[in-house]
């Protein structure tokens, strides 16, 4: 209903603006740290992914997928196969300010079991050019009011922060960014705390699409 109510405003904002599709490849290095009973279990490794997106003026949407294996680094003998799908929609009311919402489904599979995570987030993104207009930096922060993980009886909330730099070269965009997520679970003395971060190189190709007048 909120979307339906906002649609006329968004449609007016889009009037006459070009539409652009993009496809991207992403390579990243991920770490997952879980603090359980004062012991930090750490796994990490490379993961690879891809993304498709569409930008219509101030409105954007993307779907990103990752896949990789996180090897044990500390206090755990289990390697995990990891996969993630994330859908994101964003709106830029100002050239330097964006608001966005995201839905993330993440899964870890290991010989010790299977974990399924569901995250819902909403946040803001600040961006701007540096030196050359083709180069932008950004900072983003999201609050994750819904964090559901199959490892816990109840999720509490989470927080996500991102920073990065991107360069546009004709139809190509190359970006380097860092993502950090923190999840706090209720549970008193046995409370679980997890952090997940990754940094990656993102190469995207943009395909403009012009609507007929």
């Amino acid at each position, binding site marked *: 209903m909120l979307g339906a109510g906002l649609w006329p405003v968004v449609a007016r904002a889009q009037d006459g603006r070009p539409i652009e599709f993009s496809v991207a490849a992403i390579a990243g290095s991920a770490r997952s740290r879980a603090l359980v009973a004062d012991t930090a279990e750490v796994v990490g490794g490379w993961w690879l992914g891809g993304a498709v997106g569409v930008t219509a003026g101030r409105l954007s949407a993307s779907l990103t997928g990752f896949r990789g294996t996180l090897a044990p680094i500390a206090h755990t003998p289990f390697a995990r196969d990891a996969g993630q799908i994330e859908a994101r929609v964003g709106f830029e009311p100002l050239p330097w300010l964006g608001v966005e919402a995201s839905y993330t489904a993440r899964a870890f599979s290991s010989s010790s079991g299977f974990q399924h995570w569901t995250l819902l987030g909403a946040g803001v993104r600040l961006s701007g050019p*540096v030196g050359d207009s083709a180069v932008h930096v950004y900072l983003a922060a999201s609050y994750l009011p819904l964090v559901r993980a199959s490892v816990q009886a109840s999720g509490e909330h989470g927080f996500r922060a991102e920073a990065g730099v991107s360069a546009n070269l004709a139809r190509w965009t190359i970006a380097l960014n860092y993502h950090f997520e923190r999840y706090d679970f209720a549970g008193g003395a046995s409370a679980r705390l997890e952090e997940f971060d990754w*940094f990656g190189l993102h190469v995207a190709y943009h395909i403009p699409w012009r609507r007929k007048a």
Partner: protein
Amino acid sequence: MTIGRLVTVVIGLGAAGGIVPSLRAQGTPEQLLAQAITMLGATEPERAVELLRQLVGDLPATAASSVRRDAQLRLATASWSLGLLDSATVHFQDAARADAFFQPDPDAFNPEEVMAFRAARRAVVAVGVRPPGDTLLDARTGRWPVAVAVSQPGQVQLRLAGLDTAHLAARTVILVVDSTATVSVPVMGADSAPIAPGTYRLVVAYSAPGGTVSDSTVSVDVAPTTPDSLAHEAPPPDSLFRLEFRLEPRSGNALLRSIGVGVGAAAIPLLFGDRRLRTWDTQSRALFVGVAVSVTGLATYIFGRPRRLLPDNIDYNRALRSAWEERDRSIAATNAARRATPMLRIRVVQKP
């Protein structure tokens, strides 16, 4: 006749043949006509009449109708000037038969001659057709425009008839013509299918109160063809496009922004991570990205220049490009439609 007299006659005829050059040897019909006109201008009508009589008598059947018409007209006017009015009328009639389209120019002929020509034309039954020399038509719906002239109001029938039975005749057009008309001759048969490629005759049948006459001297070659496609328009030259951005002076704020974001990236784990999970590994990754952001900002500050986009110019360029693309799409669509349309080429191979 004695042998001696016969020899004398033969020698005499031979000598005459050698002394008087044949008409063909004197030049082409056009050259002879020009000589006759010169003689008329030099007030030598008797010699001109003699030459023109020779000319119209020896004109080959394949001679252009315009030459025949002009020769008859000149002969008529020369006869008229010599007071041979009946002879002039006959030649005016022959001129009308040679070219039913002809109407004397009042500036070139005296009024009495004009009236005499018109009266002579009305007295004969003559029809003329002028088809276009080379025509491209839609084989399914095309009609071949043929100009028709008649000397008297009457009924004209036109049709394309194949030279052999393998080629069926096209539909017949029947119409009443007062003087001149343009007739659209269909190029499809009675079954509405396009006529088969081949050679056809344009058969003209003309019925007037004064009699009937038919003509089938026009032959045409009908062949399927692919129409020429339209050439694509070259894209607008670069000189027509406007500058889309302007280089701005370097901004210290941009440098501060990049360093700030770099520091922010490096500080994320410190600010939001839990102290118990903090390791150098985690911090180094954030630090790497933070340094990369700051160094990129510094490098672009030194080597790059901010650009200020000029939206009006961008819109103008986009409109220019869109208009060209629209025209290009239109040309492509036209060419596709042309390629999909069966066409016939009708070429006149023998004129009346």
